[in-house]
């Protein structure tokens, strides 16, 4: 028997509820005290096609998914066809007995076919074929001998409130029957089991976008606007859902141009403001980004990457916009780029983005991708400590217009929005106070904020230096890449963003295989103390960059700033997330070459 370590895949057409079933099951498992990692894969269509959802379970925290599965829940025949090869020997396939599935083929792979009267149970006991999902998940719980009370509690929470408990009751009736039937028929054949750990720390289950939302709200973001774009939409929608509770202004705008400009307007008024989009939408924000740079307006832009160019593969993942976000915008101006790599980092880095934006009065880009945005992870409740955020709010040199006393104190001889200081950062008083009436301009301006209509060379030089100076000062607030694993290693994997999880596990595997490996994660991409980075890399025996893009963009960025070149690169650009097995395989073929 293998306890508490299993990888389950649900598959079916769009519209069959694959994702919601998978997420519900993941949540139920997390409630039992186990850790989960849930990843989805869906097509850019609303009905039909083929979607799957995968839930990996373990007693320790998980950061990535795995290609090999033990249990396949097939909602349609295609799922069996497409995923049978992923099931390990001794694993099982659960499906409705009405599906045309070739049992012999399943058996020939050493996998156990487990047909079940799912539809029948749903219709007979639940009165609706829609409850097939419930039956399927319950059947899985049955063969895993997983305490059904956890799935039941999730069912209660999702149906109990909304449509009266009658539907919940019927679902639970279906679940019980499917559970018992599956356990009776198949549990003894199946090696993998799930056993609750009731005294484990309480867990949350959330994805990257939800984590970003939590971070933003905790940091005091009060204004969020955007235009729907996968995979960023669910962040926007999360903010909409929280608007009432946290007194936020959340707005859907006519386009992404307007979305960033709205945020700039709100930030100009002294409110923490953000927008979120994907690469295509960010393309439209580029001009406004430059305006934020010029007017020194602190805004936070979340860019959740997906495969380009153009519309690319809307529902899949890629890390193809590192260099784009670094250089986007006409003219030269300061910005920061942060790339959190896990759910926890999403929470904290998002909050930090607001601090950096306001402290340095510049736009801050938070780079994620579909894999990070959508993947569910369980984290201990305590791992997300909001005090770390709320107690560290840093609004920099901001005084709000209604803070009369502070203004009186600060303003001895008038207010100049872009006054020169050694650190390049001027006092920021949003409009509204009679002593601080001023203009700002996207044109090159005077310290007062007026357009410098004489276009004086000396003022221009000072303003450019002032703005760019902020980057140098900000370096002190930026984190050097973080090392995981042994200090001393023969191989260092260098990664950023969502590659963290898969690369971490790849590192563990390599160490298990006797290749002493560590990992260097870049969360802060820009600005950075590149001399120190160069030192760190120079101390690495051999480093390889691991990235979800074609041209190994981080490694190119590193080379631009340090001259250093990796021994090789592991890249992936087929729209699928990196995973530990893929990374190790690629490294193997690479290391032969290197």
């Amino acid at each position, binding site marked *: 028997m293998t306890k508490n370590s299993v990888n389950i895949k649900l598959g079916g057409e769009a519209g069959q509820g694959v994702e919601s079933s998978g997420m519900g099951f993941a949540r139920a498992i997390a409630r039992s005290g186990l850790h989960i990692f849930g990843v989805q894969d869906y097509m850019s269509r609303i009905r039909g096609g083929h979607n799957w959802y995968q839930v990996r379970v373990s007693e320790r925290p998980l950061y990535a998914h795995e290609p090999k599965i033990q249990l396949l829940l097939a909602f349609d025949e295609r799922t069996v066809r497409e995923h049978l090869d992923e099931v390990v020997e001794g694993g099982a396939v659960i499906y409705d007995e009405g599906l045309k599935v070739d049992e012999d083929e399943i058996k020939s792979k050493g996998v156990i076919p487990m047909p079940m009267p799912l539809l029948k149970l749903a219709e007979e006991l639940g009165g609706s074929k829609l409850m097939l999902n419930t039956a399927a998940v319950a059947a899985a719980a049955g063969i895993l001998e997983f305490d059904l009370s956890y799935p039941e509690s999730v069912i209660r929470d999702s149906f109990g409130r909304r449509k009266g408990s009658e539907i919940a009751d019927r679902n639970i009736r279906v679940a019980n029957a499917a559970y018992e039937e599956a356990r009776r028929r198949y549990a003894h054949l199946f090696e993998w089991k799930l056993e609750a750990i009731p005294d484990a720390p309480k867990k949350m289950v959330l994805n990257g976008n939800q984590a970003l939302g939590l971070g933003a709200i*905790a940091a005091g973001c009060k204004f969020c606007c955007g235009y729907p774009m996968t995979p960023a939409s669910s962040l926007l929608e999360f903010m909409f859902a929280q608007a009432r509770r946290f007194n936020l202004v959340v*707005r859907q705008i006519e386009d992404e141009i307007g979305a960033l400009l709205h945020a700039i307007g709100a930030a100009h008024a002294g409110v923490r403001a953000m927008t979120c989009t994907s690469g295509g939408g960010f393309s439209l924000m580029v001009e406004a980004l430059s305006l934020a740079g010029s007017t020194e307006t602190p805004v936070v832009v979340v860019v959740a990457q997906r495969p380009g160019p153009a519309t690319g593969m809307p529902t899949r993942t890629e890390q193809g916009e590192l260099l784009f976000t670094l250089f986007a915008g006409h003219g030269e101006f300061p910005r920061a780029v942060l790339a959190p790599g896990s759910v926890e980092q999403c929470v904290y880095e998002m909050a930090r983005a607001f601090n950096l934006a306001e402290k340095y009065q510049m736009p801050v880009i938070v780079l994620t991708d579909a894999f990070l945005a959508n993947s569910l992870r369980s984290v201990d409740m305590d791992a997300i400590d909001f005090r770390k955020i709320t107690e560290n709010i840093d609004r920099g040199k901001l005084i709000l217009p209604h803070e009369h006393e502070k203004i009186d104190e600060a303003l001895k001889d008038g207010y100049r929005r872009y006054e020169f200081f050694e650190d390049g950062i001027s006092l920021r008083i949003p409009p509204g106070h009679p002593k601080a009436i001023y203009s700002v301009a*996207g*044109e090159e301006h005077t310290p007062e904020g007026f357009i410098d209509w004489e276009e004086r060379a000396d003022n221009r030089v000072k303003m450019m230096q002032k703005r760019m100076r902020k980057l140098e000062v900000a370096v002190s607030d930026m984190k050097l890449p973080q090392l995981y694993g042994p200090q001393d290693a023969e191989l260092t994997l260098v990664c950023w963003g969502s590659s963290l999880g898969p690369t971490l596990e790849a590192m563990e595997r390599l160490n298990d295989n006797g290749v002493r490996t560590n990992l260097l994660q870049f969360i802060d991409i820009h600005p950075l103390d590149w001399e120190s980075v160069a030192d760190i890399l120079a101390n690495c025996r051999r480093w390889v960059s691991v990235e979800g893009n074609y041209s190994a963009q981080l490694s190119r960025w590193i080379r631009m700033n340090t001259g250093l070149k990796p021994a090789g690169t592991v890249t992936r650009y087929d729209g699928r997330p990196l995973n530990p097995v893929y990374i190790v395989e690629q490294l193997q073929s690479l290391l032969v070459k290197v």
Partner: protein
Amino acid sequence: MVAQVTMKDLQSPVEPTWCPGCGDYGILNAVKRALVQLGIPPHQVAFFSGIGCGSKLPDYIRANGFNSLHGRPVPIAQGFKLAHHDMVVIVVDGDGDNYGIGGNHWLHVMRRNINITHIVQNNMVYGLTKGQYAPTSMKGFVSSTSPEGTIEWPINPIAIALAAGATFVARGFAGDPKHLADLIAKGIQHKGYALIDVFQPCVIFNRINTYDWFRERIYKLEDDPNYDPHDKRMAWEKAHEWGDRIPIGIFYINEDLPTLEEQIPALSEKPLYQHEIPPKLEDLEALKLMFV
């Protein structure tokens, strides 16, 4: 808002760089008059402009200003207004800004009825970039980008505003700053989005639509006792009057719709910028439970 405000209070230290005779002087004058008339002190008003000759206006009046990007003041102003809704927010931009490159923001701001006053400096040409035709240039207008005359029909801002749901639609003339001031004051007082399209002679690049050209044609809607600006049908008729007689004044007004701000729960108590941050820790902790 019944402060005593004088023209001097609104005097900027910056000298306008406009050409002598430019219609923008008349608009600047009218804007100041309107603020004086309404007693709005300079710190309680914020101007948002685009890029163009006229968009330099915020520098020429003592008030809060934001000189933004070509065609983009409208969304910035909206973001600002939602964050600071007790500020009087005025957008001033060009016909190129608003009817050209920024058209989409305009189309959408009109259906939101956000309480912003929008003054469009309509000189029917691109001034700052030296004389290309504008979306409002009359068909056949000769310019550096229409050497044989434009082949596109001009935009009709009044008609589009009516169709798009603007609740205050007016047209003024830079050559009559007193009348224009009155329109602007009414636009500011209007609870909701107010468009004031202003005929603004460009004495350099538009030698067709001159002060005289306008003076010969314009008449005031309010001089017609039968004209009812609450009647959209009438407004639509008047919107299409062009040629020998061109109406100015308030085409349309609808006071019955709520503003955008009024419909946003977070803004019911106080402006957003005054909200305390961060939120309460207990509320955040409670939020976590959503994820269990």
